[in-house]
């Protein structure tokens, strides 16, 4: 062990393992090794789907770290995650069944080896995106901090992950917030086939802790006692509220990257010598208990697990779409429609009121994002004076404090990943991405993490989070501040997407989104923030996935969401006044799930449909609706479905170009008149 940077304190210099702890550690290592050795043999037979990565050589790390954790503490893991599962107490039989893709597996066969999880043991999942679990652990630690429940989060990851941006963003966030998280880098010398010394700028990854002002320690990952001692100190520090630690465990990758890896990048001699650097064998040499009996017990357990897994039922193919979204129905007592009101308010006020009402009602609701308070750490009157780029979060820090209203660094991947982890660990975070155009920075966290967690883990995960994004063109903000990106988000299974058009619907839908058990992308069109309309007081909710008829009509259905609804209403008015055409306006409100029933019922009556969408035309919400209408109402259509969309270009800056880019009421009126002529 060497300390690359340290923090002063009164902690003991070491935390030695007792004889009982040594024995328990060795038994855990033997179970891991037994599991992986058996896997090599069984995988070879060819009846296990996919591919697997084994943990040979790193056993002391999982065992030595998890020895200090309870079921309530949380770990996140990697594609090489069997060791972490076993050390955290996952059931071996259910693990084997998962590797075979069976319904009896830990994740009901939806995850497999690379996405194995057991939430009952605080094992929040192997993560096959390199570095993907790091920010989730930061989020779990944030949940622990906000809920004050004393849990510690540990993220295991490899040396390759230490070169991902998410590693750096996560360490920075954990450090500035002093979160109870321990980062455990298992440096096995290889990122698949790339040597660490080639890919990594420093000899010891632990020195990167200095950049984030946290303790960084190198341990001999082949030495259980060293890992145990240093992990114990780090976890104790985290539990005492003294912040995060980066532990770099130097281990040997005894085998290939995956089972069957021909390892062309290592010579035969190198492969052989790696096999001989066996930390389990060396630790077992002075076991002090009956090794053979222990081994026999593990073999028996594995015999039973493999026999049971091979005989276990497959998931029902009819359930292929099960676990994409939560199956919990909204509580009808809390779900009430918007009352009618005389009161007027702006869209931005509606968003603000929804956030405040939700935070008052539920202490698990936190909001985080860039500049949502402004002047973070400066104290009043400067801190909180800004209240978000559009003022939607103004005043919230005064009422709820900086614990629940968290300004973040400009670090979208880091804080959105943290929001995902916090949601999985018990909070209901609302992450503010400021502009939708910035969301590609955290696309992994949205696409691979938030959206897939429930499904991949067979329904174990609940990710109740909201991603607020300002979006849309027309504000002369140019190419990188004006996208809607709604066509991207609506194409992702596991996300809900809401795009309200009015203050009243924005408030009711945001309140509902925060109480929803699935990740909801909440799109606020920038041109709507200053618009005013009826705004009921208090707490009310509108259902997600339900469209509404905004204006009744008989001759054509104008279908839109967000700001395009106002365009549709303008076109409908002109059609009525100037052309005696009666247009119906359908406000979708939600883009995913799409309320196709309301759309189809409207079009069945009017027999003509114009879909208005402010995104570029390819693979858009407009395309989806046009296809849906064509499939279901084709025989009753008097004219082909018309799509009015943005131009197929990035959003231009120059005003005449931007105006040409956007759909216009003129285009809608022309499309309707064209239909009536034909």
């Amino acid at each position, binding site marked *: 062990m060497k300390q690359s940077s340290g923090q002063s304190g009164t902690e003991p210099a070491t935390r030695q393992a007792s004889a009982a702890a040594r024995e328990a550690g060795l038994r855990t290592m033997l179970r891991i090794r037994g599991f992986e050795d058996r896997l*090599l*043999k069984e*995988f*070879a*037979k*060819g*009846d*296990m789907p*996919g*591919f697997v990565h084994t943990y040979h050589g790193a056993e002391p790390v999982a065992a030595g770290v998890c020895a200090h954790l309870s079921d309530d503490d949380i770990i996140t893991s990697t594609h090489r995650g069997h060791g972490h599962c076993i050390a955290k107490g996952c059931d071996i039989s259910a693990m084997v069944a998962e590797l075979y893709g069976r319904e009896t597996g830990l994740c009901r066969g939806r995850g497999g080896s690379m996405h194995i999880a057991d939430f009952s043991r605080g094992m929040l999942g192997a993560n096959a995106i390199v570095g993907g679990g790091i920010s989730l652990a930061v989020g779990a630690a944030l949940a622990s901090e906000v809920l004050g429940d004393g849990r510690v989060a540990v993220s295991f990851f490899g040396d390759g992950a230490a070169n991902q941006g998410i590693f750096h963003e996560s360490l920075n966030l954990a450090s500035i917030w002093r979160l109870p998280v321990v980062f455990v880098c298992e440096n096995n010398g290889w990122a698949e086939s790339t040597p660490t010394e080639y890919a990594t700028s420093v000899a010891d990854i632990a020195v990167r802790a200095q950049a984030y002002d946290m303790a960084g320690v190198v341990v001999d990952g082949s030495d259980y006692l060293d890992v145990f001692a240093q992990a114990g100190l780090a976890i104790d520090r985290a539990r005492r509220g003294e912040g995060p630690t980066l532990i770099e465990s130097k281990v040997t990758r005894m085998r290939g990257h*995956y*089972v*069957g*890896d*021909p390892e062309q990048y290592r010579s*035969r001699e190198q492969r*052989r010598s790696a*096999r001989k650097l066996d930390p389990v064998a060396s630790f077992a040499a002075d076991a002090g208990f009956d090794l053979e009996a222990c081994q026999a017990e593990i073999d028996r357990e594995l015999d039973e697990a493999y026999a049971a897994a091979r005989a276990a039922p497959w998931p029902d193919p009819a359930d292929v779409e099960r676990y994409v979204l939560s199956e919990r129905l909204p509580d009808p007592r809390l779900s009430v429609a918007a009352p009618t009101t005389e009161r007027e308010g702006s869209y931005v006020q509606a968003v603000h009121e929804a956030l405040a009402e939700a935070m008052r009602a539920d202490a698990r609701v936190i909001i985080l994002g860039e500049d949502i308070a402004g002047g973070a750490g400066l104290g009043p009157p400067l801190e909180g004076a800004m209240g978000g780029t559009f003022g939607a979060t103004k005043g919230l820090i005064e009422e709820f404090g900086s614990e629940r209203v968290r300004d973040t660094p400009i670090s979208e991947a880091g804080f959105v990943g943290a929001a995902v982890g916090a949601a999985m660990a018990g909070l209901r975070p609302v992450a503010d991405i400021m502009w939708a155009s910035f969301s590609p920075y955290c696309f992994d966290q949205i696409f691979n993490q938030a959206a897939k967690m429930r499904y991949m883990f067979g329904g174990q995960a609940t990710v109740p989070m909201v991603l607020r994004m300002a979006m849309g063109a027309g504000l002369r903000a140019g190419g990188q501040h004006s996208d809607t990106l709604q066509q991207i988000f609506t194409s992702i299974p596991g996300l809900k997407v809401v795009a309200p058009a009015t203050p009243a619907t924005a408030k009711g839908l945001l309140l509902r989104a925060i109480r929803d058990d699935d990740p909801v992308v909440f799109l606020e069109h920038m041109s709507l923030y200053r618009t005013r309309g009826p705004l009921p007081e208090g707490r009310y909710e509108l259902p997600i996935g339900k469209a509404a008829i905004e204006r009744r009509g008989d001759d054509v259905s104008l279908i839109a969401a967000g700001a395009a609804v106002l365009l549709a209403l303008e076109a409908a008015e002109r059609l009525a006044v100037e052309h005696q055409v009666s247009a119906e306006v359908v406000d979708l409100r939600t883009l995913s799930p799409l309320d196709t029933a309301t759309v189809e019922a409207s079009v069945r009556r009017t027999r003509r449909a114009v879909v208005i969408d402010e995104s570029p035309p390819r693979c858009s919400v407009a395309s989806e609706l046009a296809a849906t209408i064509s499939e279901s109402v084709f025989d009753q259509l008097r004219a082909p479905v018309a799509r009015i969309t943005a131009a197929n270009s990035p959003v231009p800056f120059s005003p005449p170009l931007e105006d040409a880019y956007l759909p216009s009421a003129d285009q809608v009126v022309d499309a309707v008149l064209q239909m009536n002529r034909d």
Partner: protein
Amino acid sequence: MTHEVILPKTGMYEGSVTLTEWLVDDGDDVIEGEPLFVMESDKVEMEIEAEASGRVQQEAEPGFEAPIGTRIGVIIEAP
């Protein structure tokens, strides 16, 4: 005790594989973990190690192509 020697699954590939070369002669002894034969899987040649120690009894010739999991010999452990 007798251990079956099979053409193993390696990585994702699930098609048929070809025994290219025995690295231990028929009837010779092998030690667990030593290279036993070479096979071609998905256009990649790789050495496969013995899973047990003992006398090798070959049951297939180089060039033998078969599905993953097919037996190509046994290792007979010394009693």
